[in-house]
């Protein structure tokens, strides 16, 4: 019965709507919204610590509120970055192999940078 409701092209592909068509769109809007306060906090905080020495920087990052805000900023930033770069690649890289390779590379690098950043903040926070 369900098959008769589908277009001939849809039947040939054997694929229907996954009901997730708006997911990428929503992912970008949600992370953008979160990055407005996080980005503003981060920028003001970085400026306030311009040229800070090791002691001051460590003392700042290791305070609980700062550490939590850093972790949130890192997580949302790399989520937004991974989805944003994916959008650019899907729009401009048309060769299938190159597209797949760059999509995989972007995901791997974003996750690796996020883990490196999160680990560093936790290491600073728990050691000091």
């Amino acid at each position, binding site marked *: 019965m369900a098959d008769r409701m589908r277009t001939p092209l849809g039947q040939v592909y054997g694929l229907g709507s996954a009901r997730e068509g708006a997911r990428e769109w929503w992912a970008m809007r949600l992370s953008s919204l979160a990055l407005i306060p996080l980005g503003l906090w981060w920028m003001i905080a970085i400026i306030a610590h311009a040229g800070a020495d090791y002691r001051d920087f460590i003392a700042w990052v290791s305070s609980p509120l700062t550490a939590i805000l850093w972790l949130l900023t890192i997580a949302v930033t790399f989520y937004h970055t991974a989805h944003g*770069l994916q959008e650019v690649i899907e729009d401009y890289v048309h060769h299938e192999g190159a597209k797949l390779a760059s999509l995989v590379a972007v995901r791997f690098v974003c996750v690796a940078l996020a883990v490196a950043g999160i680990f*560093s903040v936790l290491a600073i926070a728990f050691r000091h």
Partner: protein
Amino acid sequence: MPTVQRPLSPHLEVYRPQLTSLMSIFNRLTGIALSVGTIFFVWQLLAAASGPAAFASFQGLAGSWIGLAALFGWTLSFVYHLLNGVRHLLWDAGWGFDLGTTYRSGLVVLVATLALTVLAWIVALIVWGA
């Protein structure tokens, strides 16, 4: 699946550059620049987690002329992407999508980007010098 060669609608190259289209392209370009720049800030955290020597050499690089120039470009991209991102979110919410308002909000974003970037650097240089 066989590829059917259908005529394509005119693309970007047939249009004269407009403020709206250029700002849309800049939003992507600054996004890409910011993505590359994140490496720098993860590096800062890693250096701080590694110890005083690593952190001092990172701060030395950040304070060099190349470091400062890159950071200035990064600030400009950050402020632009943030402000223009708010403009995009307002459009998504259904506000300001008529032609006059898109141009006016575009100009506001450009002027505010320059003003906030200069302000951020004045404050940063005062903090750095103190």
